[in-house]
């Protein structure tokens, strides 16, 4: 009986330590989300759909050029892209944390225009904390024209 009690106490203690560690990690949401944004760019430049799959929620909606793109369509596009065809240069970004959700607004440059000229985009992304970690749910961008 004493052994069982001890095991339960250890279990409760371990749980509280795990919770504290998660909360401490969650306390630095800003750094975690920034890291994920950079992981996204790096994975895309490597055309690493496995890595993108881990951070894109299955219900991801992506909006570019006024079009709605699903997760499957986005990954297919990444897979079909030529290596280094549209390198992305991230600029400033701001993270706002709302507990289980975080929004990111920022700008980046690429050469995705039809003429191949550099374009500047402003984006808004939302990350939601799920069981598997922070997942990207919507991502959208608009060309900076003014």
């Amino acid at each position, binding site marked *: *009986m004493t052994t*069982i*009690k001890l095991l*339960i106490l250890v*279990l*409760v203690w371990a*749980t509280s330590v*795990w*919770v504290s560690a*998660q909360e401490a990690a969650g306390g630095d949401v800003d750094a975690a989300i920034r890291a994920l944004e950079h992981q996204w760019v790096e994975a895309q430049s490597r055309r690493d759909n496995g890595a993108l799959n881990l951070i894109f*929620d299955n*219900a991801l*909606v992506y*909006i*570019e*050029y*006024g*079009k*709605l793109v699903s997760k499957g369509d986005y990954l297919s596009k990444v897979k079909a892209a030529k290596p280094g065809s549209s390198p992305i240069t991230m600029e400033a970004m*701001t993270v*706002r944390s*709302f*507990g*289980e*959700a975080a*929004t990111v*607004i920022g700008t980046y440059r690429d050469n995705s225009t039809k003429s191949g000229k550099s374009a*500047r*985009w*402003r*984006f*808004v992304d*939302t990350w*939601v*904390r*799920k*069981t598997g970690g922070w997942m990207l*749910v*919507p991502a*959208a*961008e*608009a*060309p*900076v*024209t*003014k």
Partner: protein
Amino acid sequence: MRTLMLVALLACAGTLAGHAPQHSDSNVEAKIPAMEHVWAQAYVSKDPQALERILDDEFVNVDSDGKMQTKADVLAEVRRSSVLQFVTESMSVHLHGNTAIVTGVFLIKGVEHGNPFAERERFVDTWFCKNGQWVSIAGLVTRIGQ
């Protein structure tokens, strides 16, 4: 002893579930489109009052020119709106716990500096349940066919 074990197990279960809260408001998929409608009509009536409580104080939006707007910017835009007609053509809501993602298409018509205009745009808005109230925390609008 069984009670103690149950308490310990529930503590673990509560912790694991704590990172993926599900919103219990079964009406949310009707409430949020209704608030989107109020938001749209504010542009026609040039009355930003309703937006005061719909938009979170940390709300940010990216307009179709890639310009960032704060809540104050949006309220000011509504006051000087030249929109005469705002028709939401489609809208869908995806729930992720306390976060809801709304995507859709709207058509706006109006007169600016004496010139009539009509634009069809796609939008994505992020809503978050904050202290029991759904508020919009981010949005982006992009022209279709841009």
